[in-house]
């Protein structure tokens, strides 16, 4: 979760840098043609602070991810040949003033033995959500796949998900495989 938080903060700051440069450019033009007083800079500075505080997650737009149990142990023929499901593996609280889309993808795969199974071995399926929730099973890949979308909520809303490991089979040797799953909420 710490890593997730750093990502969020990084994304917010990156965006601020972009809008800041836009302001400077706009202000420069105005300064030359209209001889704007120092008051413009004050207005711009106030707005800059306003935007800075709003571009990261805030109390009206956020996604908080909580992983409960997301590890699999495969030690038998049945475990290798059948899908393994962890119920309520993770959940997220979502609040969005605007329409939103939630994407999921496998961001990284590492292993203890140098063999890398495909991202498609993992699927997610929502088992709890508000009205209009998509409850279909979504097979993940290394690119973003939409898992939810909606028009926004005025209050925090919880989605609970099962994590599914598709039949692992016999093509990958014994060892430990580490999948990192990234969830992204966008407000298009």
């Amino acid at each position, binding site marked *: *979760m710490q*890593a*997730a938080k750093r*990502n*969020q903060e990084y*994304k*917010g700051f990156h*965006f601020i840098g972009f*809008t800041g440069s836009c*302001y400077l450019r*706009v202000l420069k033009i*105005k300064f030359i043609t*209209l001889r704007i007083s120092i*008051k*413009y800079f004050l*207005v711009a500075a106030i*707005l800059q602070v*306003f*935007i800075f505080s*709003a*571009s990261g*997650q805030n109390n009206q*737009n*956020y*996604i908080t*991810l909580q*992983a409960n149990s*997301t*590890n*699999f*142990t*495969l030690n038998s*023929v049945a475990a*290798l040949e059948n899908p393994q499901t962890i119920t309520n*593996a*993770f959940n997220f609280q979502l609040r969005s003033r*605007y329409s939103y889309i939630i994407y999921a993808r496998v961001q990284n795969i590492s292993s203890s033995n140098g063999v890398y199974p495909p991202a498609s071995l*993992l699927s997610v399926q929502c088992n709890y959500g508000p009205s209009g929730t998509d409850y279909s099973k979504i097979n993940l890949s290394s690119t973003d796949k939409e898992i939810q979308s909606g028009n926004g909520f005025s209050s925090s809303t919880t989605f609970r998900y099962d994590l599914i*490991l598709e039949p*692992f*089979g*016999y*093509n*990958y*040797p*014994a*060892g*430990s*495989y*580490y*999948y*990192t*799953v*990234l*969830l*992204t*909420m*966008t*407000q*298009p």
Partner: protein
Amino acid sequence: MNRMLMISFLFLLGSYALKAQSFNGSFSSNINVGTVVNMTLTPNVSSNITLDGTNLQQGYNNSAFSSVQVKSNASWLLNVRSATTYFTASGIYASPNMPASILSLSSPGKQVSLSTQDKLLSSGTRGNASASGNSFNVGLIANPGYNYGPGIYSINIIYTLTAQ
């Protein structure tokens, strides 16, 4: 007027910045996999065989006596041995000293005579039963000759599959 335009423009930028955002979070899933080997031995014919005069003279040979299917996530070895040194004999004329070595098992390209020591019958690489080399027939060769009396003889054969 210009001042109002300027402020409106900045507010417009601000509201755009507020809306076009993305937030993210991640979690890790660890998949811990143990070594799993599995074998299915299926008899293709009855394991009770009757040896006639021709069999005593030439030996009995059935190259598809049984079938083996291996599923393994590691390279594997299949060893065979007899449970006892001699057959269990019954009948008035049966000989108590017929050794396990009158039996041999075969796999494609290999044949081993039985004893109480493990002998390698086959080996392969990881994969399910459809992987190359993971499904094959096991043959039985019995060649007692004329050295043992008529009777009913039985012996247990033990197959052991291990991961390399």
